[in-house]
């Protein structure tokens, strides 16, 4: 599942960050790492960008950027999620 598919009010765990170069590194530096829990707070009124809660702070991301991040569901615990840490 991609982060851009996650609905408002859902929590997911980051699995893999795709893309390349500066954006990918920037996402890591902002604390979006494999195994990090992310809560999708809301989408902007025009459905783009989206607002996330990561490590206790709020971050906005364009949907096209979020589409490069694959995530897994916390509750159903789909297989690709490795244990945190």
């Amino acid at each position, binding site marked *: 599942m991609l982060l851009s598919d996650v609905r408002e009010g859902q929590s997911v765990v980051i699995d893999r960050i795709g893309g390349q170069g*500066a*954006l*990918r*590194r*920037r*996402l*890591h*530096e*902002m*604390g979006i*790492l*494999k195994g990090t829990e992310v809560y999708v*707070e*809301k989408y*902007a*009124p*025009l*459905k*783009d*960008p989206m*607002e996330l809660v990561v*490590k*206790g*702070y*709020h*971050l*906005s*991301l*364009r949907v096209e*950027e979020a589409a490069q991040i694959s995530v897994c569901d916390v509750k159903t615990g789909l297989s690709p999620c490795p244990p945190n*840490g």
Partner: protein
Amino acid sequence: MSSKRLTIALAGNPNSGKTTIFNRITGTRQKVGNWPGVTVEKKEGTVFRHGYELKIIDLPGTYSLTPYSIEEIVARNYILDETPDVVIDIIDASNLDRSLYLATQIRELDCKVMFALNMADVARTRGSKIDANKLSELLDVPVAFTIGNKNEGIDELLSMAIKWAETDTSNRPARRVQYSKDIEEAIDKLSQAIAASAAGKLAYTTRWTAIKLLEDDKIVRERLVEKTGAAAEGIFQLTASLRDHLRSRFDDDPEIIMTDERYGFIAGIVKEVLVNTNRQRIDMSRNIDLVLTNRFLGFPIFIFFIWAMFQLTFTLGEYPMLVIETAVDGVSAVLAHLLPQGLIRDLLLDGIVAGIGSVIVFLPNILILFFCIAIFEDTGYMARSAFLMDKVMHLIGLHGKSFIPMLMGFGCNVPAIMATRTLESEKDRILTILITPFMSCSAKLPVYIVLAGTFFGARAGSIIFAIYLFGIILSMATGRIFRSTLLKGADAPFVMELPPYRAPTLNSLLIHMWDRSKIFLKKMGGVILVGSVIIWFMTAFPRTVVYSKDYAAEAARLAAAYEEKIRTAPEDQIALLKTRKDEALAAIERARHSERIAYSLMGRIGNALAPVFAPLGIDWRGGVALVSGFVAKEIVVSTLGVLYAAGESDDSDALRTALKASDMTPLAALSMMVFVLLYLPCLATVIAIRRETGSLKWMFFSIFYSTSVAWLAAFCVYQTGRLLGFS
């Protein structure tokens, strides 16, 4: 240590409260300028405390020190090259993980660093408590508590910084991030190679250089080549093989792995220092956002705020503007009274006083605008407005934050271009600056009103609206084109923090407002003054005009003839004849004035440009008016007034009658309006572009681009119109 001067640099994340602390320390004794070569704002201030002269530098707020953005490069280079005595890293207590990420990177630079744990009170209300002693012990740095917005702990922070600066730490091994075994081995190997071939040539430690090379840091690579020349090649080969090894070992780029490991290291620290986290907290910020970025309410509220800002800036600003105008008029009246007729008086009145007046009249607008923007920024609403608008702006290849400067352009381009300072990416800033002048500013409106009102009657409103719309469309098209050509790539990713809402302090709002306005007054005042004097020179010289006929003699003859008539006329016609006489004399004076303008350097330029304007349907008089509009767009109307000999410039009815009577056609008027909409921005705006892009290149490019677009567009309008049979 004999000199008692210390340099202290403040580092920290954006929104960490760094600027508030800087303002608290330095108060109004701060200097705002630009970092050399870039348009990132540089703030510094000097204060005297405990017998020391402390130079405080506010580094740009960053999340990291990787050289991806100018801010990060500036901050890192400052710490590396200027080696401040102490770096104070402001840690946002409610955002410990991310704050510590920057801290670990500063730590790796091997500078003397200490922490200011800021806003711990906020963190406490959120249910988390931080063990500062533990943090201090774990990272081996002094930690001070501060609450910037309540002015608490600032003095202790400075005393600690002074003490830390005077402590000899050369024998203490810095406690830093330990990477995993494979990475540490690679760092060691590379460090040895660097030490062997480049020892003493680099200003930084070999370990840091090795880490940066493994992270493929472009700037460190360049510096290595600079310092060691050919020896760098061997180091690069080793680096490449080590990077390959690590990549195959971890199945990812080494820089990503190292970022992950730093966060791992941080997670360990946070686990030890953060106690009693209960997640049940009242998050005001979130509640406010339920309304302000609400799906249905978000936009109406945003539009209301923008409308209010616009109203305040341009409506409220009008009152002090009138006062200033009156004052300037008063000064020039007094001077006119005191000084004898002549060149000096003309220079002083028409050149210098008029020039200063034209700048200072914008001051109320600028102050109010920057006050509003400071409120947006300090409360955290600016990030929300970008969040709301990003989708729309992204279509043009711009960041959501570009919206506000562009909108301000409808009022006045000078504050609009200065408002681009809120954009972080330089490319975004330049692109916004290039397209903002197409937003039709309020000074152009009088031109449209006269031309459209004269030639389009009842349809004038629609025509003017179409002109505005045309400007918006062109700016969007320009944005798209430039984004895919000139300013390619780096359409800044929208990885943007939405900081918690905060009540702004008046102190910091006023400092923000004044800092930016000061730049406007100082730098722009000087250049505009020179510009106005040049323009004055061009309209006032050559002084001795060779007229085609003797106006004075003609005026005398006419006056005599009327006097004669008046003497013989019956009683009831005298008044009428007197007005006739005055009118006739005024007409001669206007004709003389018109000829004098045509004769001046400015007029000659207009005349010389006549062939350029001819295909647009604009005659030499229109040409002169457009050239004079470079000083300020309002002047186009008054110059037209003089040249069409229509009487006093602000008497627009007379000008309309004269324009109707002239050979100007509605199509030519439309073409001229299009030209006025698009052609080169006024002098003040041009100077603002020079200031804000930091380069003459972009200034000339903007002038050239807008004028070419204006000519082409007007040409298309006029020639297509003619082909279609309009006139």
